[in-house]
C-alpha cells in the first residue's frame, strides 16, 4: 500500500468516533426542537387515531433511546431512512442535491482563496493607507451576516439592476445544452457564490496578511534580499510560499463554516442544494432528512480536512506523512 493510501485510511478510521458524536448531538438537538412532524403530515385538525397511526408508521411512538438505537444501526448499514414528507429515500434526496452545493461552495472557496491571498499579500507587503483601509474592509466583511448580505445583493443586482436572475440554478424552460448550459449555470451562480465568498475573502485576507507579515520577519527573507532579486519575488516566492501553509489550513478548517453559510445563501437564492433542502426539512420537521444532511455534511468536512493534510505535506517538505 502506498504511504498516501495508508495515511488516508488511518485518518478515516480516526474520524469514525467523531461521526458518532456528531450523530448523537444532532439527534438530540433535532428532537429537542419544538414541533411534531406528525401534525405537519396529517394537519393540525386530524383525527387522533389517524395521528396515532402515522406515529406508529414513522416509529415515533417508541421511546427516544430506542429510536436512536434503530437509527444508528441503520446508519451503519448505509440506510438513512425515508423522508417523512417526500416519498424518497434520504440518501437519494441528498445525493441529488450534492452537486449544486459542491459547485457553490467550491466556487466560493476558490474566489475567496484567490482574492484573499492576493489582497492579503499586497497589504502585508506595503503597509500604510492601503493596509488600514483593507483592514477596515475586512472587519466589515467579517461582521455582516450572510442572510442580510444575500438579500441586499439580490435586491440591488437582480431586482433593481436586472443584471442577474432572481434565483435558481438554471433558466426554467430553456433546456440549454453544452456550453450554453454551463454559461446559464454560471449566470445563476455568480450572486450566491459572491455572497458566500465575501465573508471568506475577508477572513482569508486577514489570515494571509498576518501570515505573510510573520514570514517577512524571518531570516531567510534577508537571505533572499541579499541575492539582489526583485522584491516581488521575495514577497511571492519566499514569503507567500511559506505563509501559504496556515492559509491552506484555515481554508480547509473553514469548510464547515462555508457549508453553514451555504444553508442561508441557498435559501435566499433558491439554489437547489443541500442547504435549501436542510432549511425546508428543518421547517417541516422532516427528521430523517435533517439528520442525513448533517451526516453528509460531516463527511464533507472530514474529506476537506483530509485534503488539507495531504496539501500540508506538499506545501511543507519538512512534514512527512506518518
Amino acid at each position, binding site marked *: 500500500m502506498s504511504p498516501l493510501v495508508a495515511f488516508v485510511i488511518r485518518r478515516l478510521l480516526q474520524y469514525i468516533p467523531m461521526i458518532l458524536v456528531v450523530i448523537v448531538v444532532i439527534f438530540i438537538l433535532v428532537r429537542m426542537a419544538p414541533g411534531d412532524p406528525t401534525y405537519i403530515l396529517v394537519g393540525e385538525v386530524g383525527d387522533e387515531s389517524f395521528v396515532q397511526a402515522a406515529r406508529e408508521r414513522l416509529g415515533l411512538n417508541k421511546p427516544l433511546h430506542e429510536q436512536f438505537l434503530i437509527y444508528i444501526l441503520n446508519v451503519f448499514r448505509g440506510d438513512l431512512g425515508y423522508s417523512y414528507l417526500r416519498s424518497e429515500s434520504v440518501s437519494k434526496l441528498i445525493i441529488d442535491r450534492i452537486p449544486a452545493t459542491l459547485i457553490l461552495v467550491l466556487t466560493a472557496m476558490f474566489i475567496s482563496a484567490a482574492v484573499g491571498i492576493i489582497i492579503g499579500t499586497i497589504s502585508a507587503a506595503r503597509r500604510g493607507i492601503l493596509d488600514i483601509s483593507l483592514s477596515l474592509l475586512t472587519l466589515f466583511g467579517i461582521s455582516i451576516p450572510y442572510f442580510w448580505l444575500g438579500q441586499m445583493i439580490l435586491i440591488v443586482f437582480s431586482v433593481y439592476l436586472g443584471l442577474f436572475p432572481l434565483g435558481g440554478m438554471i433558466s426554467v424552460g430553456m433546456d440549454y445544452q453544452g456550453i450554453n448550459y454551463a454559461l446559464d449555470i454560471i449566470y445563476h451562480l455568480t450572486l450566491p457564490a459572491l455572497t458566500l465568498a465575501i465573508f471568506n475573502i475577508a477572513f482569508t485576507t486577514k489570515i494571509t496578511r498576518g501570515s505573510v507579515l510573520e514570514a517577512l520577519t524571518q531570516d531567510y527573507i534577508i*537571505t533572499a534580499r541579499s541575492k539582489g532579486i*526583485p522584491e516581488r519575488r521575495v514577497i511571492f516566492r519566499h514569503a507567500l510560499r511559506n505563509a501559504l501553509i496556515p492559509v491552506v489550513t484555515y481554508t480547509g478548517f473553514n469548510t464547515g463554516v462555508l457549508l453553514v453559510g451555504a444553508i442561508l445563501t441557498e435559501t435566499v437564492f433558491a439554489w437547489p442544494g443541500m442547504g435549501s433542502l436542510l432549511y425546508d426539512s428543518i421547517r417541516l420537521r422532516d427528521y430523517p432528512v435533517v439528520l442525513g444532511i448533517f451526516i453528509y455534511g460531516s463527511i464533507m468536512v472530514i474529506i476537506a480536512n483530509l485534503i488539507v493534510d495531504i496539501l500540508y505535506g506538499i506545501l511543507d517538505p519538512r512534514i512527512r506523512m506518518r
Partner: protein
Amino acid sequence: MFSSSKILEVSNLYVQYLTLQGIVKAVDGVSFSVGWGESFAIVGESGSGKSTLAFSVIRLLPENSRIVNGKILLYPENIDLVKLPEEEMRKIRGRRIGMIFQDPMTFLNPVMRIGDQIAEAIIYHQKCSPTEAKRKAVKLLEKLRIPDASDVVNRYPHQLSGGMKQRVVIAMAISCNPQLLIADEPTTALDVTVQAEVLELLKNLINEYNMSLILVTHDLGIVAEICDRVAIMYAGKIMEIGDVYRLYKNPKHPYTIGLLNAVPTIYKSKNEIAGIKGSPPNLINPPIGCRFHPRCPYVFDKCKIYEPPLIEISKSNYVACWLVG
C-alpha cells in the same frame, strides 16, 4: 595597501535602532577601509555592533534602524551605498557584494529546493535560463566539495547537515562572483568539528577568486587563519585596527589585550579563560569618555571624561586609547 586599491571605504558611519527603551547607538562613528583582495576581520564581543556594521554595508538592516550619518563608498566607481536608491542597491547585492549569514538553519528558505535557492541569483544577475542556472548551481556545490551535488540541488534544507547547509549559503553568496564577501559569524552556529573545514573552504575560495572579505566574528582565534587585517570593535566603536601579525604580537589597546587573553590555547582550557571582567554596556546610554573605561584595568581620570580618538600609530595601524600615542 595602497589607497588607490581600496574596494570599500566606510567613513564616520552612525547607525541607530529605534526601540521603546530608547535609541540604540549600535554603530557610532566607525571608519575603516578594505583593499582589493584583502581579508578584513571585525572582532568584538557580542553586542558590540558588528552585525549592524556588516548589514549596513549591504543595506539589509532591520526596519527599526536608520543610518544617521556617514558614507559607505564602493570602488572603483566611488558609489556611496548609503545614498544609493533601493533599485540600484539591488543590482549590487549578490552581484558586487555577497553575504554569508550566521545560522544556515534559519537563513535558508525551508520550503524551497537547494538548487532553486542558489539558482535564483544567477538567473537575475546573469540573465541565465533556469536550466542553465541550475547546472551552474550543481557546479558551485561541487566546487564547495559537497558530495552528490546533482542530488543535493533537489533536496530541501532540513535534509542537510549544518556544515552542508552553510556550504550552500556560501555557494549562494559567491554564485555571481562578487568582489566583496561579507561573512557574519559564518562558523558560530556550526559544530566545532566542521568549523575548521568551512573556514578553510572560505579561505581557499577568496584566494582562488581574489575576493575581498569582511569577516565578522567574536572569536579572535579564527582570525589569524584567514585575515590580513583586523578591526577590534567595542560598544559601537572601533578600538584598534592593525595587521593581524602586529595585533597578535603587540596588541596596544587594553580591550584587544583582554580579547587575546580570552582566546583559548592548548595551554589554557576553556574554563580558565583570563577574559575581561564585566559585560559590554547598554548602547542606549553608553559610558561617557572612553567606552571601555568601566572595564579597563588601566583606567585613569581622563578616560572617564574625554573620549580617546582613533589615531594612526604606524602605517594602517590605529588605536583609540589615552595610554597610546
